[in-house]
């Protein structure tokens, strides 16, 4: 019996459903991916704190075990649903669907999906997001993009975080960008620091511009 069926077909179908949901509600859904410790939650916290008066935000937090990240977001006063993946190393589209049913986001809002800290597995699972943003930080190796090419191949924007630490680390920004462009010539970059605030206005502009593009 010939099948020719994609193994991730089921995830893909539900991802398309999520995408339809976002389109109908004119929502921008951003899938945030990175390795552990790149400052994903810090970027998110800061973004929400600075931007929550300018747009309607919702957050889905993916984490293997704890509620710590959701607590941090909750403290900012933005609606958040925590998804514990247990042993799972990535979010799948059905988890996002379930979380959306709990969140009940309003129209024209902006949804952040913070994926599990992992540059490998989340790359393969479309969640139905409009944009995938990969975060790397200057305390990591600048060759991350070619070590984890799938993730950089599938992202539209790369935030280079902890840019304030550049004088103290061996991270070559140009090299990192060149590596990322090898796997994805279309990828955009923004250099930011979630702690001291460098470059964040450009990131916020990017978000609002993408949001406006939907309408």
């Amino acid at each position, binding site marked *: 019996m010939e*099948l020719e069926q994609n193994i991730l077909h089921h995830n893909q179908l539900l991802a398309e459903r999520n995408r339809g949901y976002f389109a109908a509600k004119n929502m921008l859904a951003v899938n945030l991916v990175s390795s552990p410790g790149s400052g994903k939650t810090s970027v998110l916290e800061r973004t929400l704190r600075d931007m929550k008066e300018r747009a309607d935000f919702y957050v889905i937090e993916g984490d293997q075990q704890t509620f710590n990240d959701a607590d941090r977001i909750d403290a900012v006063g933005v609606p958040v649903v925590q998804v514990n993946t247990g042993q799972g190393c990535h979010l799948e589209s059905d988890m996002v669907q379930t979380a959306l049913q709990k969140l009940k986001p309003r129209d024209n809002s902006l949804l952040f999906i913070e994926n599990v800290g992992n540059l*490998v597995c989340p*790359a393969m699972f479309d969640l139905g997001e409009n944009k995938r943003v990969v975060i790397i930080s200057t305390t990591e190796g600048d060759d991350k993009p070619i070590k984890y090419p799938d993730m950089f191949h599938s992202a539209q924007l790369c935030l280079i975080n902890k840019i304030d630490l550049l004088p103290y680390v061996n991270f070559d920004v140009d090299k990192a960008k060149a590596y990322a462009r*090898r*796997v994805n010539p279309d990828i955009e970059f923004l250099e930011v620091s979630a702690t001291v605030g460098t470059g964040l206005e450009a990131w916020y502009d990017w978000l609002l511009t993408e949001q406006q593009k939907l309408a």
Partner: protein
Amino acid sequence: MHEMSIALGIVNIANKACEEAQAARIDSITLEIGKLAGVQLESLYFVWPAAVEGTVLAGAERIIEEREGQALCLECDREFALQHHFDACPHCQGYFKKIIAGKELNVKSMAFTLPDNPVPAPSKTR
């Protein structure tokens, strides 16, 4: 270790196909996996026994057809073999490329054993 999700996806597909064909068991399953699909075959082999235990795939032969990576250079319009995502076009050294093969992740086919007295399949066109 997303290979467990992959393996469970395969089990789901096999279950459904088995039900539709009213097969008693699956003899073999053929998977088509591209070298750029992001699947570590060793990891898949590792999780396979646990994933298929007690399912229609238990005891089925697993045949894997690997697919080489192939890209189309968007600068010079020539095709080339792609070992890694970050390879440049060997003709013009450009990185603008479209991956045209090597991302496959499919259940290609299955071989069934049908029961001795098969119930006639419900008439539906598919």
